[in-house]
C-alpha cells in the first residue's frame, strides 16, 4: 500500500473545488441586509417588494389555474414561455412598440427579470467583452458580467444642485455626455440601461435615451434594457422604451417583470422582448440552464395581461391605479423624511427613494480606515437601534466607487399606509431625541 498521494492528486487537492467563474461574485448585500431586517426591523423599507397583496383579479386567476379542470397546468409547459402568456405579451408590447411581434421568436419567459438578465449576459458577453454599467445600479449586473467573463465599465450619474432650496429630483442626477462617450471602446459589447432606475428612481428622458442610442448605433453596441418598473412613473412622466428609438430595435433586449408589474415578486415570472437574432441565443442559454418556468403562474399572468390589454389607458387599469397609489405613498414618505431633516431625492419612478442622511451623521461616528462604507454602517445601526430597515446607496456602486456617495440610504415605499405611518413615528421620535437637551 502506498502512503503518499500521487502528484496529480495533490495538484487536484490543492486547487480550489469551485470554478474560477465564481471569483469576485460571492459577496451579496441582500443576504446580509435581509437577515438584519428579519432579525431587527419593526418597519422594513429595505428590500424592494410590496407589503400589500397582488390585485384580486390576479390572485383569482392563480387559484382558477391551479384548481381548474385542466390539471395539466401542473405539468411542463412550452420551455420558452407558456403559449397564452407569450401570445399576450407579443400583443401587448407589439402595441406599445408599434411593431408586429411573433410570440414564438420575439418573446421569451424567464424566472423573473433576474434570470432574463442572466440569459442576456451568458448569451452575449464573452471573455474580454466590456459592458457599460451606469452607477448607481441594481447590484446583480456587476457579478453577472464577471461570471460571463466580461469587464464591467462604470459611468456615474452625477447630481446637479437643485434650484433654490428645492428638494432634489432623480432628474437632477445625469450622465455627462462626454464622459459616457469616453467609455465606449472596440471591446464594448453592451450597455445596461435601467429605466426607471433602481435605486434613484430616475426616468431617463427622450434626450438622454437618444444620447445613449446614438452611441450604441455608432459603436455597434447592444443595449440590455431593464424596464421592470416601466409602469411606475409619476407626475405624468412618460416611460420611453429605448427599443423604439431609431436603430435600436435590432440591438436591444427589453426585460420586464410580472413581480413588479403586478405586485407579485414571489411569483418570479419575467420576460425578454427583442429581435429573434438576439433572442435565439437567450433561448439556447435558457434551454441549457432552467429549461422551463413554472406553469401556473404564467397562466395567471397571461390572464392578468389580457385584462390589462382590454382596460389599457382606462381608469380601472391596474397600470393606471398602481402608479397613482404609489405616487401618494411617495409623497407621504418624502414629507416624512423632509420633516425630520433627511433630504429625499424625489424619484420620478420606481417604488424607491434615496435620502441624504448627512444631518443624522452624529448618531453614527465615522470610523477612519474602515473597510465598510459609511452608509452601510449607518443603515446597520439604524435597523438595530431604530428598527427601521433601509439599504445603503453604496450597495449600488462598484467596489472602487462605494465611498463616492456614502451618505445616502434607499427606502422602498411600496408599503401599506400603516407601515409608512409607523416609519414616520420612528423618524419623528428619532428627531425629537436629537433635538431635546
Amino acid at each position, binding site marked *: 500500500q502506498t502512503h503518499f498521494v500521487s502528484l496529480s492528486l495533490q495538484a487536484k487537492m490543492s486547487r480550489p473545488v469551485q470554478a474560477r467563474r*465564481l471569483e469576485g461574485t460571492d459577496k451579496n448585500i441582500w443576504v446580509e441586509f435581509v437577515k438584519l431586517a428579519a432579525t431587527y426591523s419593526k418597519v422594513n423599507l429595505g428590500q424592494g417588494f410590496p407589503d400589500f397583496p397582488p390585485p384580486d383579479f390576479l390572485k383569482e386567476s392563480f387559484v382558477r389555474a391551479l384548481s381548474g379542470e385542466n390539471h395539466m397546468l401542473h405539468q*411542463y409547459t412550452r420551455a420558452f414561455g407558456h403559449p397564452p402568456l407569450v401570445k399576450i405579451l407579443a400583443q401587448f408590447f407589439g402595441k406599445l412598440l408599434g411593431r408586429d411581434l411573433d410570440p414564438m421568436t420575439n418573446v421569451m419567459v424567464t424566472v423573473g427579470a433576474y434570470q432574463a438578465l442572466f440569459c442576456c449576459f451568458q448569451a452575449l458577453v464573452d471573455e474580454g467583452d466590456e459592458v457599460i454599467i451606469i452607477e448607481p445600479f441594481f447590484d446583480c449586473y456587476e457579478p453577472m458580467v464577471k461570471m460571463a467573463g466580461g469587464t464591467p465599465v462604470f459611468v456615474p450619474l452625477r447630481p446637479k444642485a437643485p434650484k433654490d432650496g428645492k428638494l432634489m429630483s432623480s432628474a437632477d442626477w445625469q450622465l455627462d455626455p462626454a464622459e459616457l462617450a469616453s467609455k465606449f471602446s472596440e471591446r464594448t459589447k453592451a450597455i445596461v440601461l435601467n429605466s426607471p432606475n433602481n435605486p434613484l428612481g430616475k426616468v431617463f428622458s427622450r434626450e438622454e435615451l437618444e444620447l445613449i442610442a446614438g452611441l450604441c448605433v455608432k459603436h455597434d453596441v447592444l443595449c440590455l434594457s431593464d424596464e421592470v418598473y416601466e409602469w411606475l412613473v409619476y407626475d405624468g412622466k412618460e416611460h420611453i422604451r429605448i427599443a423604439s428609438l431609431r436603430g435600436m430595435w435590432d440591438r436591444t433586449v427589453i426585460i420586464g417583470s410580472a413581480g413588479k408589474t403586478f405586485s407579485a415578486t414571489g411569483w418570479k415570472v419575467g420576460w425578454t422582448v427583442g429581435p429573434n437574432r438576439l433572442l435565439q441565443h437567450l433561448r439556447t442559454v435558457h434551454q441549457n440552464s432552467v429549461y422551463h418556468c413554472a406553469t401556473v403562474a404564467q397562466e395567471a399572468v397571461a390572464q392578468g395581461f389580457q385584462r390589462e390589454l382590454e382596460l389599457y389607458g382606462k381608469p380601472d387599469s391596474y397600470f393606471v391605479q398602481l402608479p397613482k397609489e404609489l405616487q401618494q405613498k411617495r409623497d407621504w414618505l418624502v414629507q416624512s423624511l423632509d420633516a425630520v431633516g433627511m433630504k429625499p431625492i424625489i424619484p420620478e419612478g420606481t417604488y424607491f427613494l434615496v435620502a441624504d442622511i448627512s444631518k443624522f451623521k452624529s448618531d453614527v461616528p465615522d470610523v477612519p480606515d474602515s473597510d465598510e462604507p459609511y452608509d452601510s454602517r449607518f443603515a446597520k445601526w439604524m435597523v438595530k437601534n431604530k428598527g427601521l430597515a433601509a439599504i445603503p446607496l453604496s450597495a449600488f456602486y462598484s467596489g472602487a466607487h462605494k465611498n463616492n456617495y456614502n451618505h445616502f440610504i434607499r427606502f422602498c415605499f411600496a408599503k401599506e399606509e400603516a407601515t409608512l405611518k409607523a416609519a414616520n413615528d420612528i423618524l419623528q421620535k428619532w428627531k425629537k431625541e436629537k433635538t431635546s437637551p
Partner: protein
Amino acid sequence: TMAFRHKNTRRIEGLDSNVWVEFTKVAADPSIVNLGQGLPDISPPSYVKEELAKAAAVDRLNQYTRGFGHPSLVKALSQVYERVCGRKIDPLTDILVTVGAYGSLFSTIQALIEEGDEVIIIEPFYDCYEPMVKMAGAKPVFIPLRYKNDGNSASSVDWVLDPAELANKFNSKTKAIILNTPHNPIGKVFTREELQVIADLCIKHDTLCISDEVYEWLVYKGNKHVKIATLPGMWERTITIGSAGKTYSVTGWKLGWSIGPQNLIKHLQVVHQNTLYTCPTPLQEALAQAFWIDYKRMDDPDCYFYSLSRELESKRDRMAQLLQEAGLKPVIPDGGYFMIVDVSALNVDLSDVDEKQPYDYKFVKWMIRSK
C-alpha cells in the same frame, strides 16, 4: 450601416439544438397519444393543489422569500432526508432549492466544473448533461451501460457498467462523474455493489459525484434506492439532486433541490444568487406543507412516496404486456417511469427517408405521423 457583428458567445456554440424542442413540437397535435416527454397526465394529489391554494391566499407568500430556499421548505427537506440518509442535514447550509432538478444540475456544474475538467457521463444519459458540461467549458467523457445478455435484455438490471472500462475513464483531470439512479431512460436502479465500484473510484481519484436521483421514490418491487452519498467517504464529495416534479407529479412547478456538504453547497448558492436569486414562494410553501404531510406518514404505506410507486408499477406491467402482445421486446425498468423497447422486430423500412438522422429518430417521427 455597419454590419451587425453580434453573434452568440463561445460558451453556447453548438448547444442550440435540443431534442425536446424538436419532438414536443411534432407531438403537440392533440390527436396524438403522447408517451414521449416525461410528464404525468394524471392529476397531482389533491392535497398538493389545496396547499398551493392556501399558500397563494397569504399576502406575504406572494412576495420574495429567502434566496437559497424558503425556510419551511428547506426545513421539511432536511427532515425527510435526514431520515432517509441517517445523518444530520443543516437546512440553511446543506440545501439549495432550485428551478427544478434541471436548475440544480446547472448550478452544480457552473459552481464546480470548468475548462480543463473532464466529467464522466454514463450512456445513455438524460440529454442535458452533455451541453451543460460543455457550456462550463469542460470535456464530457462517455461510458456506456452494456447489455449483459448479448441483446436479449428483458430487464434494466441487465444493463451494466464494465468496472475495468469505468476505471479507465478516470484520470487526474476527472472533476466529477454524473450518476443517475433510478436511471432515465433505461429505468436501472443501481445496486449498492454497483455504487460501491463508482464510489471507490471517486475516492481514489478525489472526484466529485453529481447524483441525479429525481426518480428516487419510483422503485419497483424487489428493488431499493440506495443513495451514493450514504456510502463511506462519499457525503463530502457528493451533490444529491431531487425533484418536486417527479416526487409529487407536478413537473410544472419546476422545483428541485441540491443536498450536500456545506463546503460544496455554498458554491452552488453563489451561482444561484447570481443567476435567478430566488425561486417562487407560494410553490415552495405548498411543497413544504405537502412534505410535512408525507413525512408524518413515512412509516405508513399510504405515504405518497410509496403509493405513487405502486400505482406506476401496475402501469409499467400493463405497458410491458401491451408491447409484448405486439411482438416487441421491452426492457422492464426497475425504477423511473420510462420503458425502452427494441422495435427491430417490426422491420419498418425507412431507408427512403432522406433525413440524416439515426434510425430511431426516423422511426419515432414515422410512428407519430402514421400511427
